[in-house]
């Protein structure tokens, strides 16, 4: 007899799918139902994901055999600490974005609400599917669902977004193909698709050329998906021209889920022992360092806020990948193994989610895209801008925000790994972050609105507040306040046991 919680991993995916098709039908009858169904679904999914996390932490991993077939014969869902954690993050941001989208979508895509929410829910389905699955081909299927719906959502604003989406489609498809090739190669030598099973079958074959080629295919394919530096070219346009909540999801979740898939492949299909025998992770570190610097420099050169944030995402993926690259050599408990990268996955989701939602709010209220047009916004939209400042300070890495914590832990990890080169890189990047975020803050708060320079007090009276509706402000502030609260929680080491459990799953970290 399975307990109810053990059914939840599959239900999280199926409920989402069912809600997508329900939205499709009920939306035909009444357009307004779409948002309510979507929100209710995501809320229930989020709650169940918390139950799953609780179960995984207290009882242990959940193994669920779909169709009742024993693993190598059928498909298996495995929930361990890693994907339970990622699932919670993903559903949380999904929920926040869908709450935000109620007003925003009415404004941006006025007569396409139903299909938007259908595809959005399908996107969530795909993301959940990637996260919970324990079967690598199943993961591929869900990557396809995710990518397809992401292409559609990015393109949904039409015009220039179509081109951005097309670039993403081409590159994303190449990435998915590489992933599939990798799966094919592994299948050709092992005859198995189950992740746990593969990890048992592969060790005798580690020298095999097919296995090495498969690994390279996985890395390249997923690097495209997660926009690692030389392969990031699709990202800026896609992030810039998508609707705000989709930008937030793209930057905060979709590329992170690809990173999750990467971690899964690297540490669950292959093992830490295999990775140690290859210089792959060292190369990743260097690529990530390049991503951090070049992403930040390119961000500085942008004049469009959303493009700037997009390049900042490239840099932040660099952080995550750098932390990942250090994971097999840094072992000390709080910053050992996957801890810093896991941390930054959550932190980046919070910060960048908030920033993109704020950027969307500017577009919603006044169609402002360019940074130089933000003069006086600090007075016109005080709450929105304050949230922006918090998230931006967090990106710069001012304590006690989340950005500081991940920076600190990655630096500690690189010292632990004796790779001192990355310390100045990280420090430099926080200065670069300062440059491009401060420019925005300065324009919003300090620069006077033209023609009103003369008197101090006059422009206070002239500019009345034009705050965005509460339905959009609340999600922004939830994320902004979490940027600080989560930072304090990280500093207090409260979620560290969870991360340590992730590490122990893969035999990393451990010294306490």
């Amino acid at each position, binding site marked *: 007899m399975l307990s109810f919680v053990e059914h939840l991993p599959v239900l999280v995916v199926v409920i989402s799918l069912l809600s997508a098709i329900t939205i499709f039908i009920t939306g035909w009858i009444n357009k307004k139902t779409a948002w309510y169904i979507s929100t209710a679904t995501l809320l229930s999914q989020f709650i169940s994901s918390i139950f799953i996390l609780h179960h995984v932490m207290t009882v242990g991993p959940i193994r669920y055999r779909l169709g009742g077939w024993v693993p190598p014969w059928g498909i298996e869902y495995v929930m361990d600490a890693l994907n339970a954690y990622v699932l919670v993050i993903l559903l949380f941001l999904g929920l926040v974005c869908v709450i935000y989208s109620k007003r925003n979508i009415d404004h941006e895509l006025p007569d396409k609400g139903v299909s938007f929410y259908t595809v959005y829910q399908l996107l969530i389905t795909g993301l959940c599917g990637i996260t919970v699955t324990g079967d690598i081909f199943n993961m591929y299927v869900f990557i396809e669902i995710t990518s397809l719906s992401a292409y559609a959502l990015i393109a949904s604003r039409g015009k220039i977004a179509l081109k951005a989406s097309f670039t993403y489609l081409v590159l994303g498809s190449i990435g998915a193909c590489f992933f599939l090739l990798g799966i094919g190669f592994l299948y050709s030598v092992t005859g198995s698709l189950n992740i746990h099973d593969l990890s048992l079958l592969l060790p005798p074959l580690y020298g095999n050329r097919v296995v090495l080629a498969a690994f390279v295919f996985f890395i390249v394919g997923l690097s495209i998906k997660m926009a690692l530096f030389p392969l990031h070219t699709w990202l800026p346009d896609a992030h810039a021209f998508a609707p705000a909540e989709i930008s937030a999801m793209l930057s905060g979740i979709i590329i992170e889920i690809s990173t999750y898939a990467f971690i899964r492949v690297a540490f669950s299909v292959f093992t830490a022992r295999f990775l140690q025998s290859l210089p792959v992770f060292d190369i990743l570190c260097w690529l990530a360092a390049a991503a951090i610097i070049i992403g930040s420099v390119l961000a500085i050169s942008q004049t469009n806020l959303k493009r700037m944030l997009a390049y900042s995402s490239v840099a932040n993926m660099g952080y995550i990948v750098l932390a990942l690259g250090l994971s097999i050599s840094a072992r000390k*408990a709080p910053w050992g193994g996957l801890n810093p990268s896991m941390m930054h996955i959550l932190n980046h989701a919070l910060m960048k989610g908030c920033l993109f939602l704020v950027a969307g709010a500017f577009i919603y209220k006044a169609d402002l895209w360019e940074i130089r047009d933000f003069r006086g916004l600090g007075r016109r939209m005080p709450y929105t801008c304050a949230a922006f400042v918090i998230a931006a300070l967090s990106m710069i890495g001012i*304590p006690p925000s989340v950005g500081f914590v991940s920076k600190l832990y990655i630096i*500690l990890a690189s010292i632990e790994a004796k790779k001192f080169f990355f310390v*100045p890189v990280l420090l430099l990047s926080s*200065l670069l972050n300062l440059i491009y975020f401060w420019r925005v803050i300065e324009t919003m708060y300090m620069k006077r609105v033209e023609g009103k320079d003369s008197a101090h007090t006059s422009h206070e009276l002239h500019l009345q507040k034009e705050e965005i509706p509460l339905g959009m402000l609340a999600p922004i502030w939830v994320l902004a306040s979490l940027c600080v609260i989560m930072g304090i929680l990280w500093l207090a080491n409260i979620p560290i046991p969870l991360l340590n459990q992730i590490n122990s799953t893969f035999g990393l970290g451990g010294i306490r």
Partner: protein
Amino acid sequence: MMEIPETLKPLFALGCPALAAILILVFGRRPNLREGVTLLASLSQFSIILSMASRVVSGVKIQSYLFPIVPGISFGFRVDAFGLLFALTASSLWILVSIYSIGYMRALKEHAQTRFYFCFALAILGAVGVALSGNLVTMYIFYEILTISTYPLVAHEQSQEAIFAGRKYLAYLLTSGVFLLAAIVFTYATAQTTDFNPGGILSLTSSSRSTLITLFILFILGFMKAAYMPFHSWLPAAMVAPTPVSALLHAVAVVKAGVFGIVRTVAYIYGIDLMRELGLGILLASFAGVTMIVASLFAIAQDNLKRRLAYSTISQLSYIVFGVALLSPMGITGAILHIPFHGFMKITLFLCAGSILVASGKKNISEMGGIGHSMPITMLAFTVGALGMCGLPPACGFVSKWFLGLGTVEADSLLFLAVLLISSLLDVVYFFPIVYIAFFGDRERGTLNLSEGRMMKEAPLSMVIPLSITALFSIIFSFPNPITSMLFDLVRLAISH
């Protein structure tokens, strides 16, 4: 008043400005309530910190650690004599400056006053946090809060110049924050802890000589808030801020936080012995000595009163660094004493500058002829501050300079003694003319209010009273009394490990 458990006192001391910041935002539309909150918070913070003093004087270190951040580092506070001294200085001056700024901001009808008070409270949070922190990481957190929260104050005027100054301010201070973070992380990597420990936590056994020297340079770069040359130019630029900000933050809280950090590093991270062994004392002292003299020379050239005071600050801060760098007990005594003394004296000078600005709209020294006749109290206070700066009795600057001089003798360095004397002489050179012009200068030009064109008089009472109090204290400190003896006790405790 309810008795607060001792270990929670540091938290409450920091809670006051934090709570005040929130309430200020809430009461943003009601000025009286908003400023009442500021005053109340400053008073209660000071009383809490003062209540810790008696315990600290008796030799107890109040510790409260909240949670471990990484093994060996906890987020928490440890109040020792040195930290308490700085906290006392900052919080006592906060009371006076908040009274003063109410008068100043209202008189000038400044915009965005809510933001001003909000950031001010946060800056005090940062400064007191730096003072009470138990280790480098905690200190770093508050140090950065201090940097960020003072930015809106520097750029308060929102003119092109102010924005540029703000940019410069951030560029310098956040860059230095990065160096500081690097230094802290490497310290942690070598010593496995960053707790302040009298006698130091680093040693030659744990790492090589060159590493320690490099690390020390990182630390010094990290404490760029101390405004030593050649990284000083943010401080004069930051003088575009409203005067209360310049007074409290750029003469006391921010820059002293930098100096405080250097002293902490020298005495509590490296330790005197290790410093001497590495020969870093000489290095630091020569650095500070150069800054003392060059900054004074710069100061002579300034006509803008606030800028001249800013260069004077740069010079005086280096006295403190200099005293510590002598690595002798007397030198360190002088240095530590100079922190509160210089605070009180310099704040007097700045408050006077602000009063002059409010009363007459004048910023430049050359326009201040005869101002002493229409603003006698202000200029008298200014004279006291100036005397102290030059190290002349009866102001308390004399006391700290006396100890510094003894320190140079103790360190057997006549060269350093000469530097100290030359610098004091230069202080006289740039302060004396101000006093002279104020009392004996051209009265016709000086006594008109530039902005309103009528005869000027003293600034509002809420401004005159604080500056008189600080001037009074500057004198009181140089005579034996309970307050001074408590200060000396604290200093003795701080150096006796």
